[in-house]
C-alpha cells in the first residue's frame, strides 16, 4: 500500500468513527427518547411539556441541527489534519 493510500484509509477510518458516534446520538434522541422510552420520559415534566412528547415534537429536531453542524466542524478539522482541505 502506498503512502497516499495509507493516508486515505486512515482518513476514512476516522470519518466512519465520527459517523458512528453522531448517528448513535441521532438514534438515541429520536427513536430512543421520542419513541421507545417516550412513556417513561413522560413521567418527567418540563414546564408544560411531558419530556417524551417534547423530544418527539421539539427536542429531537434541535439535536439534529446541532449534529450536522458538529459534523461540519469535525470534518473540516479532519480535512485540515490530512491536508484534504481546499
Amino acid at each position, binding site marked *: 500500500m502506498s503512502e497516499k493510500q495509507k493516508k486515505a484509509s486512515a482518513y476514512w477510518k476516522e470519518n466512519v468513527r465520527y459517523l458512528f458516534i453522531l448517528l448513535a446520538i441521532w438514534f438515541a434522541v429520536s427513536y430512543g427518547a421520542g*419513541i421507545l422510552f417516550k412513556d417513561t420520559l413522560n413521567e418527567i415534566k418540563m414546564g*408544560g411539556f411531558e419530556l417524551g412528547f417534547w423530544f418527539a415534537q421539539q427536542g429531537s429536531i434541535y439535536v439534529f441541527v446541532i449534529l450536522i453542524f458538529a459534523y461540519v466542524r469535525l*470534518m473540516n478539522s479532519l480535512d485540515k489534519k490530512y491536508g484534504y482541505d481546499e
Partner: protein
Amino acid sequence: MDVQTWTYLLVGITFSIYIGIAIWSRAGSTNDFYVAGGGVSPLANGMATAADWMSAASFISMAGIISFAGYDGSVYLMGWTGGYVLLALLLAPYLRKFGKFTVPDFIGDRYYSKTARIVAVICALIVSFTYVAGQMRGVGVVFSRFLEVDINTGVIIGMVIVLFYAVLGGMKGITYTQVAQYCVLIFAFMVPAIFISIQMTGNPIPQLGMGSRLNDGSGIYLLDKLNGLSTELGFAEYTDGKKSTIDVFMITLALMVGTAGLPHVIVRFFTVKRVRDARKSAGLALLLIAILYTTAPAVSVFARTNMINTVSNKEYTAMPEWFKNWETTGLLAFDDKNGDGKIQYVADPSKNELTVDRDIMVLANPEIANLPAWVIALVAAGGLAAALSTAAGLLLVISASVSHDLIKKVFVPSISEKGELWAARGAATVAVVIAGYFGINPPGFVAAVVALAFGLAAASFFPAIVLGIFYKKMNKEGAIAGMVVGISLMLFYMLKFKFGIFDGGKEAVPGLEKDWWFGISPEGFGSVAMLVNFILSIAIMKFTPPPPENVQEIVEDIRIPSGAGEATGH
C-alpha cells in the same frame, strides 16, 4: 382593505418577484440548467433546499394533521427533519465529490451498467410524478379559497408560472426563485404563529408558548388544557396518541430514509462548489427547515384548542364569518343530527356533527384567532410559495431524467449540448402539462401516494447509494436486484393494504389492518422493504463477480473531499 384585496396585492407582488428573478437568471448551458453552474453559495443553496423541501404538504397540511393526530403526528416532524442528518453524513458530500448531474448518473456509473441507470430513472420518475401532482392541487386549493377563482383556473395559473421559470431558468432560475420563496413562506408561517402564541400564552416564541400556561387567568398549562378537552370529547389524549410503538418507529424510519433518498433533494447538493460547502449547506438547510418544523407543532396545539373552544357546544347560528366561508368550500361541514341547533364535536362518529378537513387548520387559523386581514393574505402567498417551489424542483428532476439520463446517456449519446438543453426544456414542458392534468383531475389516490413516495424512495435509492459509497465491493448484480426487489415489494404492499387491489376493492378494505405484516402500516413498510434491499444486495454480491478495478478506484476517490471539480455531464 379587505382580505381579498390584500391577497391580490401580496400574491401579485410575490409572483412578479419570482418572474423577475427567472428572467435575470436564465440558463445558458446544460451545466446552468442542471446544476446552476455549480457556483451556488452554501447559504443560498440551504435556503433553496429548504424551500424545495417544504411543500404544500409541510406548509398547509402538516400542522393540521398533527393537530388531529397529536403525538402520532411526531412521525412527520422527526421523519422529515432526521432524514437530513442521514443526507448530510452519508450522502451529500460524497455525491458532490462524484460530481455528476443526477442521481441515476451516480447509480449508472457506480454500478457500471445501463440497466442500473434505467432502473434508477424509472424509480426517480415514479417518485417525482406522484409528488408533483399533489403540489399542483395545493396551488388550486389556495387560489380557490382566497382569490375565489375556480380550482381549475388556479391550477392553470400555477402551471403557467412554474413553466415560465423552470423552462427558462432551469436549476439556476429555480435556485434563486426558491431563495425568495423561502423568505416569503417562512415569514408567512411565523407571523400568525407569533401573534397567536402571544394571544394565548403571552409568550412571543411559539416553541415556548406551546409549553406555557394559558393567560386567561386560569394558570393551567396549555397542553394540560388540551389533553383535558380531548378526553372530555372522547378523543385520545393529545400528548399520547393511538398508533402502536412499532408502527410509529417504522413510519419515522421510512420517512427519514425516504427524505435522504429523494432525488429532488439530493440534486440540490450538486450545485455547490466544494465538498465542504455541501456539508455546510445541508446543515443550513436543516436549520432553516427546523424553524418551520418546530413551530408547526405549536400551531397545531393553538389551532386545535382554539377550534374546540370556538365550536364545541355553541349555537350554529352564532358561528363567526370564517365558519361560513369554509363551509362554502366544502372543507367544513355541519350536520345537526340531534336537531338542537348546537354543534356537537365529539370522537363518536354516530354523535359527531362537525367534519373538518385537516388542510384548513393552517389556512383558517389566522381567521379563527381574529388576526388582521393582511396576515390572512400573507398565509395565502406563503402557501403558494411552498407549493410552487417544490413543484419546480420536482419538474427539474423529471426533465433531467428524460433529457440527460435517457436521451443523452442511453438513446442519443451524440446529441449536442444545445440539443440536450432544448430536450430538457421540452421534457419540463411536457411534465408541467401532465402534472397540471393530475392537478385538475386528481386520481383519488394522489394524497395517499404522496406519503408512500417516501417508502418507495427508501426501498429503492437509499440502499443502492449508501452501499455504493460505503461498500467498495458492492457490485451491479447486488444493487440492481436490491432496487428491483425493494421497490416491487413496497409497491405490492401498498397495492395490497392501501388500495385493497388483491381483495377486490379500490380502496383499503376495512379490517385489512389486522393482516398487516408485524403490525406495520403501508406508510411504515418502506423501512422493511429497505432492509430487504440491503440484505439481498449483500447476499447476491457474495455470489457474483466483484466490480472492476476502475470502479473501486472511483469509490476510493469520492471518499476524499479534495479536488471536487465542476459537475459535468461526461
